[in-house]
């Protein structure tokens, strides 16, 4: 597999730009398996309410330190697994990952599953994510196919709905976000720290993408924002799949933006528009300065709405 458009946009653009200035294009010249590879020193670690937020390994990774080991939310790309786990060890002062929760099954989230699983760590995910990892899957968000992952890399505990665990004396909750980004999304909530790791439906400072080929669809995406909106407080720190952190207030505001777009979708439906027609209408132009080009978000979101509402 190769890195996704999202990881490219949010993680690779700066690297690629810098490389271009140097007259080299390592990302393009590298082998397929090596695309997006970073060293441990390139992974940025930030403290978020006592959690370690690690960025640069393919997605935002969150680590909670325990006395002997760590809990991880998402695991970056497989090519960065070693570097990431090294950075996690440094950030948490632990040598082992006790539990890894996958917010969904995309390669940016599950690249450390094998290392953690082989070391005896527990892997938690939605059941749909486990199933997806048992075979080769494709997605509009990455080239080629991904999986199947080895047995040791597959989730060992799954849920259809919600669950909780205690780690280092702290409660950690996770819950299904139905049909939001894929059909196997979980958010992970650290209530004591007022931190929500939202996973795929949220991206800081940019537009998220909906994997319409794998059960993500606009209705579910909106519902996920409603669910998160009901959970968060205005000052809750919200960590998306990529990008800087947001707040609970941002989530509520974004929910309104997406609802506004969704309402427009049905006007576009009545006009017979296709996804690219909607993109051309620029229905989110007032947010482009803040969040960048929404073309792919709109295209995929509209496509998913077509899939969900048009008889096949």
């Amino acid at each position, binding site marked *: 597999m190769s890195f996704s458009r999202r990881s490219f946009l949010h993680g690779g653009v700066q690297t690629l730009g810098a490389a271009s200035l140097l007259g080299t294009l390592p990302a393009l010249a590298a082998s397929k398996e090596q695309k997006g590879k970073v060293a441990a020193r390139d992974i940025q670690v930030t403290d978020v309410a006592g959690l370690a937020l690690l960025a640069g390994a393919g997605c935002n990774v969150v680590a909670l330190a325990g006395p002997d080991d760590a809990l991880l939310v998402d695991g970056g790309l497989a090519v960065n697994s070693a570097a990431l786990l090294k950075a996690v060890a440094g950030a948490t002062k632990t040598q082992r990952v006790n539990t890894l929760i996958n917010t969904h099954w995309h390669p940016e989230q599950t690249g450390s599953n094998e290392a953690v699983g082989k070391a005896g760590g527990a892997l938690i995910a939605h059941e749909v994510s486990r199933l997806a990892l048992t075979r080769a899957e494709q997605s509009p968000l990455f080239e080629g196919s991904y999986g199947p992952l080895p047995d040791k890399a597959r989730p060992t505990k799954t849920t259809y709905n919600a669950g909780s665990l205690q780690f280092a004396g702290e409660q950690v909750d996770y819950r299904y976000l139905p049909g939001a980004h894929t*059909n196997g999304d979980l958010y992970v909530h650290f209530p004591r720290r007022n931190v929500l790791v939202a996973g795929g439906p949220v991206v800081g400072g940019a537009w998220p993408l909906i994997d319409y080929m794998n059960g993500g669809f606009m209705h579910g995406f909106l519902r996920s924002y409603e669910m998160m909106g009901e959970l968060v407080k205005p000052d809750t720190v919200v960590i998306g799949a990529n990008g800087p952190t947001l707040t609970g207030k941002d989530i509520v505001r974004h929910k309104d933006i997406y609802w506004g777009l969704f309402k427009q979708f049905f006007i576009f439906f009545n006009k017979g528009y*296709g996804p690219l027609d909607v993109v051309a209408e620029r229905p989110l132009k007032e947010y482009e300065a803040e969040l960048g080009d929404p073309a792919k978000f709109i295209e995929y979101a509209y496509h998913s709405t077509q899939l969900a509402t048009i*008889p*096949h």
Partner: protein
Amino acid sequence: MRRGGIVAAAVAAALLSGISVLATAGNADEPRKPDGSTPLQWAVFNGDLPEAQRLLKEGADPRARNNYGVDAMQLAADIADTNLIQALLKAGADPNTANPDGETALHLVARSGNVEAAKLLLKAGAKVDAREQFGEQTPLMWASARRQPQMMELLISRGADINARGAVRDYQRVATAESRAKSMDRGGFTPLMYAARENCRECVEVLLKHKVDVNLPDPSRVVPLSIAMLNGNWDIAKRLVEAGADVNQWDWFGRSPLHVAITSMGNSGSRSPLDTDHPNEVTGRDLVKMLVERGADPNQQLYYGASFGASADRGMTPFLEACAADDIEFVRLLLAHGANARLATSDGRGAIILAASRSGGGRGRGGFGGPPGGGGARGAAPPARGAAPARGAPAAAPPTGAVAPRGAAATLAGAAPRAGGMPAGARAARPANPAIELVNLLAEAGADVNLMAKRHFLARSRGGSALHYVVRGGGDPQMIQALLDLGLDINAKDEDGLTALDYAMGRGYVPFLQMPTPPNKALADNLRHLGAKVELEKTPDWPPQGPPIATAVYDSVLWPVEPVGP
């Protein structure tokens, strides 16, 4: 190649010019007909080898095209005449010329199945993987779609791409002159998909022999295995499974082969005359068993409505499909293979609702307002004399004619029901009614008897408990009793605030331009006798119309997405 069109045009042109179609003999240098066709082309079209040879000998140009871009080689290929093709090639015809649609002589011959003709063309340099322009299909695809296994063997032996895919059409706009949006064929089929669709078992064998990718899906990720089953081609489906097809590969709709197998079981397969003496040896039921035994997941949930069946609801699993079909054999089989009886569709229809409502509601939709045939015309059979009252029911004499299931009285006598479960007594008393047996089995497996479904505007259902569905479906008294035996709350209200008794009294939601359902007094009396106490004083003033589409959409009830599961 639109041979019919070309011929028709040629015939029309000939008739217009007052020339008999049959009177085609002429000289090589004779002027062309009004459609631009040459005497050689007419000779070839008529399969007249001596005339064609004579014209070629006189210097007729074998590469000349008529006004439609068709040359003599294509006409010869269309009738797969080996001798004519040989004569034309010998005279300098180009084996790779294509008509304006990009169809080559090899395409046309591949369709016909004339292997010798294809060998001639290939020997003369015909491109084995030429693509026509409309669907970007190769001769191998045409051979497969026309059930020509020997031709496929030849083409593959000459290097044809066994996994080639036709053009994928990414239709942006799905609104048509039909004035409503609809899905359109996206193309992208492979030779294996054509063979699976067309029930060409020999073609499949040729492809398998040459190591075709059995899991290569179509653009919506529908795998060849599902395509075979959707068409009732069970022998091919079995063969694909044996060849290693992924039994869990879901498509864009979340639909797995097991979904397809269960919902397509009734498809008896090809009605082609070619298959009259060659019926399927295995059945859809065999395939379901085979898939399950090979690890198919009975809990895979649909994402979207799919292209088949009426049960295509978000969250539907193969197991729920079996429940909705009241197929107790498969329900048992799937439970033995890990089916989760607590899963439900996204609008909350669980296994018991789907199974129970089959008796009257059909696939668990449950309708709107009240029981069909209100007033007892087609409604529930009246309660039998002497039926035992349910827990808490008044001890008054039951309505005349009440019917109770065998064993119901014994069950009710002392069995304390557990919430969502099955009282011990009920387990001991097996009813004869298979639907009730299924409902009891599901309760034993952990299905929640008190699950309340939500309204679903697309499905035109008002939701509610299994009892709501049963009552709206006619109110089978045995099923009602069975549900109560399992601990169902007879006074539970649905999202409209209505109890099952309200529906029996015809107080349910009245859809736009429909008449209210009249009360079914007998059914209502039976429910009251069984303990129903909660009902509205009068029928609500239902708005003349349902919620405007905008409300339905904005509230997301258009497509419920809530998770319902363990």
